[in-house]
Structures are given as C-alpha cells and as structure tokens.
C-alpha cells in the first residue's frame, strides 16, 4: 500500500468520530468487560488457592 493512500485513509477517519460514535455503548461495554474480567479473575485465583 502506498504511503499517500495510508495518509488519505488516516485523514478520512476522524479521531473525533472514532471516539464519540456510540460513546455510551462503548462505555457500557468497557464497564461490563472490566467487571467480567475482575469476576472471572477472582474466581480463578480462588480456585487456584483452594
């Protein structure tokens, strides 16, 4: 891929849009991801200790 094409693509994708599109959905998904990870991690470490 040519460098000009890559630069064109970067210009096309607005960082503002990437962050703020479906922001609520992203935040809820992040919250659920963290809670799930903490819960599973907790269960696994408890299992290892037992």
């Amino acid at each position: 891929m040519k460098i000009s094409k890559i630069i064109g693509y970067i210009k096309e994708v607005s960082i503002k849009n990437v962050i703020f599109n479906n922001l609520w959905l992203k935040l809820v998904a992040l919250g659920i991801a963290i809670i799930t990870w903490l819960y599973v991690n907790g269960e696994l470490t408890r299992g290892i200790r037992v």
Partner: protein
Amino acid sequence: MGGFLKLMDWKAILEILILWFVIYKIFLFLKGTKAVYLLRGIVILVIAFFVFQKTDLYVLSWLLTKFFAFFLILIVIIFQPELREGLIRLGKRHIFYIEPKQEEIDRLIRAIVSAASIMSKKRIGALMAIKREIGLKNYIESGVMLNADITSEILQNIFFPGTPLHDGGVIIDGTKIVAAGCLFPLTDNPDLERAMGMRHRAAVGLSESSDAVVIVVSEERGSISLAINGQLTKNLSPSDLQTILKGQLEKKK
C-alpha cells in the same frame, strides 16, 4: 483501587481490551433489533447477580446461577434470528472477492442515480440492491435471472408499473443487473416507522442480513432512501445519493 491497579499487567489489559471489543461488537450487532430489549433484561439480571454475590445473599445468588444455566439454552432459542444473521455475515465473506474497477463503479452509480431520480419524479416505486462482499444467491434465486448490463433505461423499464418484474427487487452485481423480481427478507426492526411500506422494510431487511447497499424509491411520496447495515437514510436528493454511493462503493479500494 490500588488492588485493582496491582492486578493490571499487560496480559490483563489485553484480555480486557479483547473482551471490550467483543462485547461492543455484540452490542452494535444487536442495536436496533428486538433483541436489545432482552439484552437490557439480561444486563439487569447480571448486575443483580453481582450485587447478590457482594452482599452475600447466597440463596438469591444460587437461584440466579441456576437460572443462568437454563437461560443459556433460552438465549440460543430467543436470539436465533440474530445468531443466524451473524453467522451468515461471518461465513459468507468471499475470500476471492474481486473489487470492481473505478469506471465500472462510476457507470453503476450514474445509472442508479439517474434511474432513481427519474422514478422519484414519476412516483414509480423501486427497490435496488447492490451486492458487495456477501453473496446474495438465495435472493437471486427467488427472482428472474437477467444478467443485463446496467443502464438507467433498463432499471426504469423493470420498475414500470404493470410490468411482470416491477414488484420485487433488483440485484446488481458489478455492472450487471443479475436478477429482477427478487424477494428480500422483511425487517422486524421495531424502531422503523409504521408508515414505512413493505419496500422499505424489505430494503432494511436485506441490509441487515447482508452488506448490500439497498436503494428504495417510494411509490407514495416519490422519496429516495438508502439502507446500509440495517440503517435507513430517508429523503435523499439525487446528489446525496450519488455522494453516499460513491463513499460506500469506493470505500474498499
């Protein structure tokens, strides 16, 4: 907070990021479908489960654990249409997809915009789907094979009221009108206006179950609409249509 940060190494962050991406994609996929209401219910149950766990309410927590096991089977049944569409999207990507040439795209856009603009003025209903990466064989088989080079005149002729093929949708692949009179799946999106007719429901339905770009011309209002990924953009002018089509069809170059 300190304990949480202590747990965080690069592997943990990577795992959370992957989880986040998967959950976000599932949310995006379910957005605008009936399943979103069920998802809200599930989120409430999950929160309740964590609260019961943290507050040592063992009986309620045990009941919810048993309920979740049963619920997994229930989810497969309830979310069956969404799961099916998701698997279709995953599995039907063509490995050897050949991207159309620029002049072919230009010709295609010119023909569609011209036909849509004329049919909109004459209040002739039309439904045109442009195939992208996901195959539309099932829907092509429901219509009449044409394999005709695309021109504005042929499109207008197909949708002219009273002609045998005017009722279904047209499927376009590259610069060919592959089939006409095709039956598209109707959406059951509850957010779609009740005033939207079958043509618009079919357009949204096809765009939900494939990556096709679907153009609708309303018979009643003469308006031009466009459905992509289950989202309907209404009341487009011919120049708007041209701009969006260019953006969508040239995007993958």
